[in-house]
């Protein structure tokens, strides 16, 4: 880790004001006592992943009947998981993980979001982690941030959102970092200080600039390694890399690199799950990205993979029935994808509700039998020792944790 410069110290003490003395950044002892060795990665699958296609309940005859045009079960190349569920062949590269108990699923899960089936409200609620009934309002903070607030000994580097977009899941009062692979702020010291002053009064620009300075210095040396000779060449190179750094592999590599250093929590998004048309091709592409991300995390984390849990969750599921164009429309229950060396995997968790018409939600969607937040909460309880009252009261207000599903080893 790069040394913190005096200028950074001054800048940060100006930001933190009276709470500066309490900041772990000022005490190397606290800096070392990050919250343990365990690591949590949360992947948001945007667009509503079809859990019924990813983890196919091929043993349920209603599935084949509702999806005549789909490739279903081991007969179509999916891997049999347990005689009832089969894994979509788009995830076949993860098969060794399943065999090693490092891959698992929870089926028939959802957030409390019901009925309106809007991606955008659904994703907001998934990241806010609240009880619902607040659709359309601006969410103040996300559940990973509220969780971070409860952890002792954290620093700004403990939690990281990776990608080109702001992450609601980490929005909130606990400091965290939001950064994109290859992003870089390269400024001369004088310009950097002048801009710091120009941003000082603006509540939006000021913290964003301070974070950009902090993180760019951390990764590339002080002042982003600016040599000041050719700003255009500098920017062009950086911009090219940033523009191309949006793929799953680059994002996962970067997350793994930071998790090996001081980060313990990382989050990023993967899109492409809104498969209204030609699902067999489009879901395979999306699964390919998910598979790449998980494999890159495993490779990048090396020995730390054993302390890691990855949770990949989506805003809602899709209709049981295939639609008019070889796809599926917005539904309710879906599946949670879990991976990591810390996982007690090789299993499909959850109570299966069945797929007969009377078993469905609204007579069209997979009926959720458990809140996806409960699985996330149990993972956090085991990884970081957080107690039940904190998880039910603060992190996921209104959630009933229920029994321990035994996700982790």
């Amino acid at each position, binding site marked *: 880790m790069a040394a913190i410069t005096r200028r950074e110290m001054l800048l940060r003490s100006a930001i933190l004001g009276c709470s500066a003395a309490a900041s772990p950044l000022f005490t190397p002892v606290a800096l070392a006592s990050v919250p343990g060795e365990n690591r949590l990665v949360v992947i948001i699958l*945007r667009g509503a992943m079809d859990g019924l296609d990813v983890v196919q309940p091929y043993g349920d005859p209603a599935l084949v009947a509702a999806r*005549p045009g789909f490739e279903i079960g081991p007969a179509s190349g999916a891997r049999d998981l347990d005689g009832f569920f089969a894994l979509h062949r788009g995830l076949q590269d993860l098969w060794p993980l399943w065999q090693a108990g490092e891959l698992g699923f929870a089926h028939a899960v959802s957030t409390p979001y019901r009925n*309106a089936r809007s*991606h*955008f*409200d659904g994703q907001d609620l998934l990241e806010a982690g609240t009880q619902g009934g607040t*659709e*359309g309002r*601006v969410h103040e903070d996300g559940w990973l941030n509220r969780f971070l607030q409860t952890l002792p000994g954290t620093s700004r580097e403990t939690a990281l959102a990776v990608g*080109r*977009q*702001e992450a609601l899941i980490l*929005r909130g009062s606990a400091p965290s*970092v*939001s*950064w*994109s692979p290859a*992003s*870089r*702020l390269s*400024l*001369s010291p*004088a*310009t950097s200080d*002048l*801009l710091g*002053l*120009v941003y000082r*009064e*603006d509540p*939006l*620009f000021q913290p*964003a*600039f301070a*974070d*950009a300075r902090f*993180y*760019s210095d951390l990764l590339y040396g002080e002042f982003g390694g600016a040599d000041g000779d050719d*700003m*255009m060449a*500098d*920017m*062009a190179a*950086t*911009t090219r890399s*940033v*523009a191309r750094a949006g793929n799953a592999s680059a994002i996962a590599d970067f997350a793994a690199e930071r998790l090996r250093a001081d980060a313990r929590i990382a989050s990023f998004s993967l*899109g492409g799950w*809104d498969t*209204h*048309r030609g699902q067999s091709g489009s879901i395979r592409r999306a699964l390919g990205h998910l598979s790449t991300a998980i494999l890159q995390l495993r490779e990048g984390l090396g020995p730390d993979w054993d302390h890691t849990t990855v949770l990949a969750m989506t805003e809602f599921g899709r209709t049981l029935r*295939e*639609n*008019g*164009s*070889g*796809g599926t*429309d*917005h539904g309710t229950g879906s599946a949670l994808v879990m991976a990591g060396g810390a996982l007690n995997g090789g299993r499909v968790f959850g109570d299966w509700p069945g797929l007969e018409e009377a078993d469905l939600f*609204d007579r069209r969607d997979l009926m959720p039998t458990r809140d996806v937040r409960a699985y996330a909460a149990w993972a956090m309880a085991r990884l970081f020792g957080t107690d039940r009252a904190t998880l039910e009261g603060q992190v996921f207000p209104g959630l009933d944790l229920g029994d321990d599903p035994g996700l982790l080893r």
Partner: protein
Amino acid sequence: MTSRATLAQIRFGTGLRPGRRLPAPEALMERLTGPDLMAQTYRQEDFATRAVAAQAFRSELRAARGLADGAERQAAVRAVMRDAKFRQLAISLARGVASEDGLRERLTWFWADHFTTAGQRAVMQGSITAYVEEAIRPHVAGRFGDMLEAAILHPVMILYLDQEGSIGPNSRNGLASGRGLNENLARELLELHTLGVNSGYIQRDVRQMAELMTGVGLERGREIVFRPGNAEPGPEEVLGVTYGGADPASLTEVRAALQDLALRPETARHLSRKLADYFLSDAPDPGVLEAMTATYLQSGGDLAAVMQAMLAQGAAWAPGPGRVKRPFHFVVSALRALGVVPDRIAQASRPDINQWAYLPMVAMGQRWQGAAGPDGFFDDDPEWIHPQALAARVGWAMAVPSRLRRRLPDPREFVSACLGDMAGETLQWAAARAETRAEGVGIILASPEFMRS
């Protein structure tokens, strides 16, 4: 105290253009309701031309498949298509930089985002600009119902939201093929384009709307047709109003439903709120919203009247800080402030546009015509100004101006030339103390005063 003339250009237009006389605030509406000069000066190709090009694109890609030099051929075909898209981007930028009718440009960006289409599908390649040009731009000062019809029943939208695959399960073709509905367009029509999410419609309305729209299809990828053989028989009820049921069914009933949706009070509220959000504040003054909604309903969705109602409210002219400019707006207003010649932008080469416009905007969070979903780009300021996006904006402000202008302006003069009386004291002080002109100009363009509107 900021003058209204300055605010008019910055908040409702594409920014100040140093060296030009500042028009009176009233010019905003006069020009918006006059002729569209920019569309005449900088022409975009029409959809018919682009549809032919997209078809050629597909067949040339296919023809190259399996050939010994197939990969190179395909790369060449893709390069031609990319050239076309970058030409369209260059023209869109040039219009914003040159325009004396900036409100029209801003509204075009707004409504193009409201009716977002995007996609990598070959059949849509290079066609999104033409869709905006034909379905959106002519209506930004017209009636919303007309824009709605033009956008929803445009081939690009039909393709983007999968309407061509939606078949009535009990229609002749549905019964024969066993295929059924695709809800995608119907849902986004209610949720995003008209009523707004959580405004009271239910899943049944989505289904019924989807059934009503079965039959809407596309011929040869370019002409909207109505196929009675795909149309779900029987009437449909959307929000308590019954449509369809005629035999044979026809497009007329779909158009009637769209016009009704346009005039719903939920739609009036949703669109007024979104417009006020975009121009004024994410917590707009209730009086402004009320005036806009009332005007919308009284005028039958006359969008010029709605804008006039917004501008007539004192709260619309409250001094900053205003909304954060989206990357496209930021780049246009900066090019304008720098006095870059619009024709030079319109004629810039693909590598140039890529290096100083397209890729930087990606890094700032806005891939041009590449929104991740039909809800378009973000609404909230924090979604644009996070550390990595701000780093990209600062990098642009520092590096690009000296690439585009041989001699940069003196920062002490530039600060008032591009911000008028909106520049704060700290900014003026800092701009004067920069080590070089490039850094002084960069600090000004990267300032909150310039990044906000």
